[in-house]
């Protein structure tokens, strides 16, 4: 019973934070510097790890698909398999998970320590709503940066798959063939854009949830660590639950 109350409270406070943050959207031009800083944190500094991970995910996909498909002679379709899986599912989910681990945890840690050391209270007494100064720029930044990360993840993953398809002896598919199949079975609107929308929703959800958990931290410094753990766990659950519903809605 208590658990249910906690979960519902989490939902409620998250939605409330969302509404409040959105109401401060007009102040974004004034907070340009903060917005840029968050863009830098969320987008630019996350790029290397996104690139490395998506490269290897694309490679492994091609490898596994090639291994499984050589038995029934369908390995020329590896291009479309890697392309579709990366764009529709793995790219967005991977970007969101990295975001939760790398950016979400940092956001929660920062906001939780601000809360614990009364910096949030200080902001409130200064009549500066935390939702305006701390949450809204982050949400705006994640909306702008996540599609960029996701499209890079998609493309790097495709190239990873293409390289494996060419150089692994039991697959040996030339990049031309790989990409022509990929192009033939993919549509930008449904597959790539759909994936970007998914990534957008996940990223937004992750940042919102992490902000909320950070701002609602209570107690001493020990709670900061607990809040970070909670934020990452909740983010991961959120991503996979949202994944099902968003995917279904986009079909």
């Amino acid at each position, binding site marked *: 019973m208590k658990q249910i109350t906690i979960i519902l409270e989490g939902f409620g406070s998250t939605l409330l934070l969302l509404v409040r943050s959105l109401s401060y959207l007009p102040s974004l031009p004034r907070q340009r*510097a903060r917005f*840029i*800083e968050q*863009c*830098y944190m969320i*987008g*630019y500094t996350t*790029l290397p790890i996104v690139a490395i991970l998506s490269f290897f995910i694309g490679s492994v996909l091609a490898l596994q698909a090639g291994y499984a498909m050589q038995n029934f002679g369908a390995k020329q379709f590896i291009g479309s398999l890697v392309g579709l899986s990366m764009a529709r599912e793995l790219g967005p989910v991977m970007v969101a998970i990295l975001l939760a681990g790398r950016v979400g945890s940092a956001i929660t840690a920062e906001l939780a320590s601000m809360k614990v050391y009364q910096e949030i209270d200080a902001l409130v007494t200064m009549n500066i709503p935390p939702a305006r100064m701390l949450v809204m720029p982050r949400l705006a930044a994640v909306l*702008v*940066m996540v*599609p*960029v*990360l996701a*499209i*890079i993840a*998609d*493309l790097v993953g495709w190239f990873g798959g293409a390289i494996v398809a060419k150089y692994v002896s039991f697959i040996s598919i030339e990049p031309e063939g790989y990409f022509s199949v990929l*192009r*033939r079975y*993919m*549509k*930008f*609107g449904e*597959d*790539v854009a759909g994936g*970007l929308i998914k990534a957008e929703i996940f990223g937004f959800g992750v940042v919102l949830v992490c902000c909320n958990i950070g701002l609602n931290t209570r107690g001493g410094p020990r709670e900061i660590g607990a809040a970070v753990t909670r934020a990452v766990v909740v983010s991961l659950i959120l991503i996979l639950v949202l994944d099902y519903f968003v995917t279904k809605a986009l079909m």
Partner: protein
Amino acid sequence: MNNLQQTARVGLFFLLGLALTWVTFETLSGGKLFKNKGYTLIAGFESLKELKDGDEVRMAGVKIGVVEKTRLAGRRAEAVLRIDPGTKIANDATASIVMAGLIGTNYIGIDLGSEGSPPLADGAEIKTKVTPDINTIMTEIGNLGQKLEGALSSFGTTINGDGKGGGLFQKLDKLVTENSEKVGATMTNLQEITTKLNKGEGTIGRLINDPTLHDQLVAAVSEIQATAAQAKTFVADAQGIIAQVKSGKGALGTLVYDETAADNLRSTVANLRSVSDKLAKGEGTLGKLINDDTLYISAQSTIKKADRALDGLGDSGPITAVGIVANSLF
């Protein structure tokens, strides 16, 4: 790091994202951004089969456009083709849906049409023709399979018997057991004959060991193979023949189902033995043929004539029958 540098990096990063998205969009949707480039043609089909938006339009194998849209229009399916500017398509050119692979990779192929005919205008309708796709071919093969099965099953009952009087093989078995001695001697003689043949002795020996003659034979055989296309009609004929054989009509029928005929066969085999004895000793015409090579030259010219005759025969009945046998052998 100062703010300007950070802003520049974020800006650059965002532009990179936009560029990549645009490139992906261009590649996957086949340049739909330039929607107004080129002109459209409409191709109506009974069924578009596996054709979908974005598939290629090729003329004589060269890509000249894409399938922009597929839609239902009344009682037919229409594909709207976006043709690259500068490509002219003759108004008597025909479009067809071509399979590029076994599984669902199609494109629209347009032939060149006749020279000098005026080009099609924007929005015009192009003539189409239906080409068999994998499904119709599969259906045809299925039908053929059913026919073959019917033919083979009646053939089977002929060979194995239908429960009374024993089948063809049982009768043949009886025949061979009864005459095993005679057959044995015949075989010995035949062995002698083949040894001679092998050494190139006699006309048939020369015939077998001479390469030029072999080439001619091969040519003859390939002609025979060409006639194999008539197989289907033969299968039907064969079914009829087998029916006749079963009812005891015709020579083979008599042979299999008539006891007196079997007696005749037995004496024939006895005669065959004496003939082969004579052959071995070089007696008689055939004996000479085997043991003497004077006839070789004339045999060679005869085969050449036969070759020419085959050329002329085309697909007349008997050759068709031979053709199917030859086809099954080679």
